[in-house]
């Protein structure tokens, strides 16, 4: 049996599932500063910067750079995944809010993080530069509104929301307030996928993307199993590749989808016809056995070349012991790290992140079009999906 081990696992939500209980096992966090000391720390100088928006420029003293302060909404798997990255990024996790109580998570952080059960309280009281929304999809719109009303910038996990209406609401909120806003379409920050995008293949022919894993069992209250909350296989899983393919090959004219689903299992296929005439397809599975860790595959076939990228074909680190075998694909910076660094860089440089609300809405629209097609047994044009 081959299982990925350690915190170097491939990046996707569905990957590190076997380790999600202890994302901190290998990553140590040593932050000395405590919230209570802030009046005496350079962080207290940050507020007076003159700007109509929140300060985006951080003072440098002879002593230190002032680290960014993040509030995390959620204390589940994604929150822990992000926290692992923040530990290496000089981003201080100033506060965590979770209705189910973030204490266990915060104890693991061991950096004097404030705890809240209500994210709006976090936004009102905690001194944070941005809110990182790592909660179930159906809660995104309320959390974004809360953060923006408190004048805080926002990073939100993908998908942006479960419906186009909610996604539009989010877009309007962040636009009105001129919030720096980004959606975590993390595949765009994977080095393999990023490299593949720019390889020469001539004119686009057929794109193939697969993403297969066991059913995600790490959602608090099993929210992945509740399609009202997660949106299902296309909205939560296939959206990774739908977004990526759209980023690479442009807008899509029509989708056709089929899927099979059970209470804790789903497997679907989405075929795509791009506006440039090319064809593509995405296969997404939450129905693999526990022994099969996240498997991804990407191919771009063109009239003058072919790109092939496959997780199963790569084994840069392997380990065998009497207890089993493991394949790892370690990278210096995980895709999560790269996406979060990108966001922090945008905050500092006051530039727009690469994946804003409009982009995320179009990817959600594709996923919802796939959902609609699977229900109707007909091809669907994404622009038909307006709700």
């Amino acid at each position: 049996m081959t299982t990925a081990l350690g915190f170097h696992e491939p990046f996707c939500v569905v990957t590190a599932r076997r380790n999600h209980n202890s994302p901190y096992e290998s990553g140590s966090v040593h932050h000395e500063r405590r919230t209570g000391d802030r009046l005496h720390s350079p962080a207290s100088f940050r507020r007076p910067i003159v700007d109509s928006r929140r300060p985006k420029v951080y003072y440098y003293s002879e002593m230190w750079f002032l680290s960014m302060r993040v509030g995390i909404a959620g204390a589940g798997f994604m929150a822990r995944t992000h926290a692992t990255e923040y530990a290496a990024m000089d981003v201080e996790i100033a506060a965590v809010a979770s209705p189910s109580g973030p204490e266990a998570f915060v104890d693991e952080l061991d950096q004097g993080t404030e705890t809240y059960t209500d994210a709006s309280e976090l936004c009102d009281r905690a001194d944070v530069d941005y809110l990182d929304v790592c909660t179930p999809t159906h809660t995104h719109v309320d959390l974004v509104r809360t953060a923006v009303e408190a004048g805080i910038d926002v990073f939100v996990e993908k998908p942006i929301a479960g419906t186009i209406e909610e996604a539009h609401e989010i877009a309007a909120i962040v636009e009105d307030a001129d919030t720096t806003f980004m959606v975590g379409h993390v595949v765009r920050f994977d080095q393999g996928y990023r490299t593949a995008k720019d390889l020469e293949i001539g004119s686009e022919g057929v794109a193939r993307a697969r993403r297969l894993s066991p059913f995600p069992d790490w959602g608090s209250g099993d929210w992945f199993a509740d399609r009202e909350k997660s949106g299902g296989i296309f909205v939560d899983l296939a959206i990774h590749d739908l977004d990526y393919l759209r980023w690479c090959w442009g807008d899509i004219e029509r989708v056709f989808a089929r899927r099979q689903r059970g209470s804790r299992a789903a497997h679907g296929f989405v075929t795509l016809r791009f506006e440039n005439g090319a064809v593509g397809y995405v296969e997404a599975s939450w129905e693999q056995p526990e022994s099969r860790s996240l498997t991804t595959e990407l191919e771009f076939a063109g009239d003058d070349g072919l790109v092939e990228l496959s997780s199963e074909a790569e084994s840069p680190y392997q380990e065998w012991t009497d207890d089993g075998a493991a394949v790892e694909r370690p990278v210096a910076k995980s895709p999560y790290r790269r996406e979060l660094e990108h966001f922090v860089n945008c905050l500092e440089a006051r530039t727009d992140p690469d994946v804003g609300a409009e982009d995320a809405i179009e990817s959600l629209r594709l996923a919802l079009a796939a959902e609609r097609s699977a229900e109707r047994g007909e091809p669907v044009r994404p622009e038909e999906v307006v709700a």
Partner: protein
Amino acid sequence: MTVSFGILSAAHVHADAYAGQLAEQAGIEFAGVVDEYPERGRETADRHGTEYVADVEAFLERIDAGVVCSPNVDHRDWIDRAAAADVDVLCEKPLATTVENARAIVDRWRGSDIRVGVAMPLRFCESVRQAKERLQAGEIGVIRSISGTNRGKMPGSWFVDPELSGGGAVMDHTVHIVDLVSHLTDETVAEVYAEVDTRFHDIPVDDVNVLSMELSDGTPFLLDGSWSKPESWHTWGDAAVELTGSDGTVAVDCTDQSIVHTQASGPDAGVNRVFHGSDTTEALIGDFAAAVRTDREPMTTPDEGLSAVAVVEAAYESAETGRSVGVVD
């Protein structure tokens, strides 16, 4: 008992592989080659130490069985002529280019005493055999979704002449995996949605073939059978299928037993993959020769060939109409 075989048209690229088996296998007498083009027939015969025969009807009178390697549109005619002479036939795939012709072949077969086989070598792939055993034993539970590929290089020659081939990648690279899935699941394809186009090559037939299908029991089945592999790719193409079940997943890749061979110079310079798995052509010819010898059904029969042709026809109809199309029984 030795059975005598002939090649009935050497138009297909596989003709040489079949001829090699006919020349080598014990219990087979390779009686000769007939062909629409004497030169092509003569060359094929010479390469395998047999004779080119100009008089087709006389040749059919003296052989037990023939392997039809003609262009697709001529399959029906060759089978008719063989049946008239009481000659058993192994026919290249697809069985025919239209449901109408495939049905006529099935009728002819049922109305005669001859054995007719369809060349579906993947059924003989060792990993397919293993998958069949495991599926039948219920090892992966109820099958819930199927994903397959049969990509290849653009074959050129008469394959891209619609008058002879009946179509492009959809015609050429749909039936292998469709047949394999039927073989493995005992279900047939009930519905097809197709994205079909010509985007890789400047040819008068399709080379993009992406089919989103549903089996008779409702299982989704996606197939990419495009001619999307560049000429410089390391092998001819691929043939793979993955079946996800309620209790497990089985993945079969029929080409994934290969040696990496790098040639420094010459026409094949570059990295090539050389297959070293069990020879499915040998098994296919062996099975058909045994069927002839012992008067039993070969591995794949014309009714099964018809089912695959019906999927091809539905795929073209879907591409035309933009809708998911039901496959005729």
